[in-house]
């Protein structure tokens, strides 16, 4: 049984179409009722999260690759965790990187979990299933309001 009053939106930030397909498939295998939104680069993710006008609900969970075009995953993570409202959204880095400096930097910035994508298809599916069971079945996610027009990266938007 999902542990939420209403299913939260899940934001997947990933540019690799193959990884998107596997991740979506593994998430949906659990017959989750959560809406999945996909951003294919860091800039698109930041635009979704820091929308200038109020729009549909913010995600309650973010899966974030680090190797992204336009704006990298570390920069996206930093922007989220420095924002007063967004920082409570759990961010799971799901990346091919296993570099210790990426792990340390991510936890220092406040990542909720760092996970290295397994190479094999079955292992990848299993890890995403574990993510799904942990965050959707047993974790309680924060309730998010509509998106806000707060400054991105701590900088004031130009008027």
């Amino acid at each position, binding site marked *: 049984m999902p542990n939420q009053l209403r299913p939260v939106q899940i934001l997947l930030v990933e540019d690799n179409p193959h990884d998107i397909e596997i991740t979506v498939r593994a998430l949906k295998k659990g017959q989750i009722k959560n809406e999945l939104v996909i951003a294919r680069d860091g800039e698109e993710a930041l635009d979704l999260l820091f929308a200038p006008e109020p729009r549909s609900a913010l995600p309650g969970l973010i899966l974030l690759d680090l190797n992204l075009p336009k704006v990298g995953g570390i920069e996206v993570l930093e922007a989220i965790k420095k924002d007063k409202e967004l920082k409570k959204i759990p961010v799971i880095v799901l990346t091919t990187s296993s570099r210790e*400096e990426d*792990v340390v930097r991510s936890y220092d910035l406040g990542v909720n979990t760092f996970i290295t994508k397994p190479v094999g298809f079955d292992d990848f599916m299993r890890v995403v299933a574990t993510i799904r069971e942990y965050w959707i079945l047993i974790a309680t996610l924060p309730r998010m309001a509509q998106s806000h027009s707060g400054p991105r990266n701590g900088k004031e938007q130009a008027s």
Partner: protein
Amino acid sequence: MIDTKPPLHVLIVENNSSDSEAIAKLVHQQSGSVRVSVARDGDEALAVLASAAGRPDGQPNLIVLDLGLVGLDGRDVLRAIKADPRLRHIPVVVFTGSNRMTDVRIAYESGASTFIRKPADFEGFARTVALILEYWAEAAVLPEEETVSP
């Protein structure tokens, strides 16, 4: 590149001895390689973490924290951990009986990795502990302590 994961060392911060014993037992049943430490209140937890910091064999790399502690409140323990550059990289799983959304919000805002409500039934409790262990021991990558510098 990380070739092998560091072994999991869990610090359980829990004043209810039945719960802490149950968690420790369930962890040991599932995995004999996971090390478990227990602190019965917030002051003890912070003392354990302070004395273990910098010792490669001593520091927990995962904290399971109840909010309803005697003495120093669990929320203050969480804030103290996240404010300490030697400790802030350690994931903290809040595992508590509280069902208040303000506690959920405060926990995540204060840097908790996860907020998980303790199931009231033992079967649910056991299943939840098993999932916590599977997630952190099998899926998650934790920073190697010797590479974390304040």
